[in-house]
């Protein structure tokens, strides 16, 4: 009879809350997950192949569209790599503006995540508040670049716009409000009893596991891994504006909440530093249309962790090969391993805990002893998770 109780629960590929689809299969014994696999590619657009048929400038636009949330870091990684191959460096003011945008982007990304993760845990009020406050940074991004997404800041060799006095004041005012709100959020996620029941000790990943599974970014730092490209291999203007490492030894969902929230304070501090010490000068430097032949590796810290670009130029107007390894790919491996031994009801939280740039599910099929079956939507799985904890 035991064997009959083992179900495979397919989750995915569509999910209305997170962006991008992904498909997970959890084998469960009763309520406990015993195995997990992942299938990706539902939004595979062939960008790496497409890069080989486009020139460097066109590719800058193409690669900015890899991700709608952290678009700026993608374009930055490509621009930095191409500049290194061409043997040029963007002027200091351009580097500072890139860094400023990177940190504003991190704020919007972390706040977006905070809302989504709170929603999955059944904490709608926190979701509403954090997304309301996120509009402040969205307005700042729009006022600087003209866009809410795909800011299109970069050129190969510089940036497209300057930060004026007016922007300067706007940004300082905006992050002052955000900083107050973030203090409140940190207090909420670390003291609210109901919410702690969903995060404390859940999705535990030890330091050894995080290293073995190759986790990156806040997911790794919440397991005590001291790894941040902004510190390990500073790029843009990070050498002038050093970042302070934020880690936590907890390794559970609570630690991931703490790390991301505390990183917001670090971003506010950096933005003030940059604005108060903005280097004067040009915004662009001349770059040849043909990038000299060679290979380079460009690594930047995206909101979700290390973003890795391998770029090969053959000396023509078009790149020979651009390989992109996004941080979510590293963190997926950790989810499929960490999920084992946890309750099915914890899956929505564990999945959103890594801030995945994928999305999961619009329905799940419960295969029930081979005879009856029922179809659940993601919404129902989420409710099931919330109900499960309410009854305990």
């Amino acid at each position, binding site marked *: 009879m035991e064997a009959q109780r083992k179900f495979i629960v397919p989750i995915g590929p569509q999910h209305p809350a997170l962006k991008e689809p992904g498909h997970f299969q959890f084998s469960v014994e009763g309520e406990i997950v015993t195995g997990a696999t*992942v299938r*990706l*590619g539902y939004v*595979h657009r062939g960008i790496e192949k497409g890069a080989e048929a486009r020139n460097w400038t066109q590719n800058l636009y193409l690669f900015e569209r890899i991700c709608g949330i952290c678009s700026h870091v993608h374009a930055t990684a490509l621009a930095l790599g191409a500049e290194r191959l061409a043997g040029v460096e963007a002027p200091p003011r351009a580097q500072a503006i890139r860094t400023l945008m990177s940190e504003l982007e991190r704020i919007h990304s972390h706040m977006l995540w905070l809302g989504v993760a709170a929603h999955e845990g059944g904490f709608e009020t926190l979701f509403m508040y954090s997304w309301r406050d996120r509009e402040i940074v969205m307005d700042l991004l729009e006022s600087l670049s003209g866009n809410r997404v795909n800011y299109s800041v970069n050129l190969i060799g510089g940036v497209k716009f300057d930060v004026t006095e007016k922007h300067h004041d706007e940004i300082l005012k905006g992050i002052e409000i955000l900083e107050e709100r973030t203090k409140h959020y940190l207090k909420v996620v670390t003291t609210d009893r109901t919410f702690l029941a969903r995060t404390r000790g859940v999705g535990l990943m030890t330091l050894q596991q995080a290293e073995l599974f*190759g986790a990156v970014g806040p997911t790794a730092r919440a397991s005590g891994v001291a790894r941040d490209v902004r510190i390990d291999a500073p790029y843009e203007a990070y050498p002038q504006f050093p970042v302070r490492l934020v880690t936590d030894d907890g390794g559970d969902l609570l630690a991931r909440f703490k790390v991301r929230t505390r990183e917001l304070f670090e971003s506010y501090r950096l933005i003030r530093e940059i604005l108060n010490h903005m280097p004067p000068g040009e915004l662009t430097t001349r770059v040849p249309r043909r990038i000299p032949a060679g290979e380079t590796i460009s690594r930047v810290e995206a909101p979700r962790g290390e973003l890795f670009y*391998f770029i090969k130029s053959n000396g023509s107007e078009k790149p020979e090969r651009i390989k992109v*390894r996004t941080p979510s790919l*590293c963190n997926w491996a950790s989810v499929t391993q960490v999920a084992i031994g946890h309750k099915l009801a914890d899956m929505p939280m564990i999945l959103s805990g890594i801030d995945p740039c994928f999305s999961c599910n619009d329905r799940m099929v419960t295969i029930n002893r081979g005879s009856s079956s029922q179809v659940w939507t993601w919404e129902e799985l989420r409710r099931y998770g919330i109900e499960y904890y309410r009854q305990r």
Partner: protein
Amino acid sequence: MDTSTALEKAAAILQPWALATATPEPNRLDVVIERGSLIPAVKALVKARWGFFSALTGLDQPPSGDGEPVREGCVEVLYHFCSAAAVVTLRVSVPYSDAKIDSICEVIPSATLYERELIEMFGVECTGTPNTERLLLSDDWPEGVYPLRKSFTGFQQAEGQEANHGSAA
């Protein structure tokens, strides 16, 4: 540990298997190895706790065209390890005619996703990899078509059928 010390250390660790080494950039070390040396070399890096396995890149090198010296088509597989700012790349070349490489999953379990990507994009078999199911390409993608090889330039538009576009919903 600063970058140059880290690279020197890596060079010493990998020295027994290195066919050639290069330093394309100050923070990088490229080590060309035989495919048979892949597992021992990766094991040595992991055992010495040198950095972490960051990415796997496939590079297609198609056979030479007319008028060039004869060269067999091959896929170069790059294993990138990062330790702070230092990046070490193990470079292994496999010919089209025998496109096989040992899976490194026994040493680094999280490499499974990267290997699945290599298998379907470049047609390199990863011997011993735990899962060979499709990761990125659609279910109705034809067998034996490897999109990131240079020889792939898109499908011929078949009649009444949208090429390059999965119809499996």
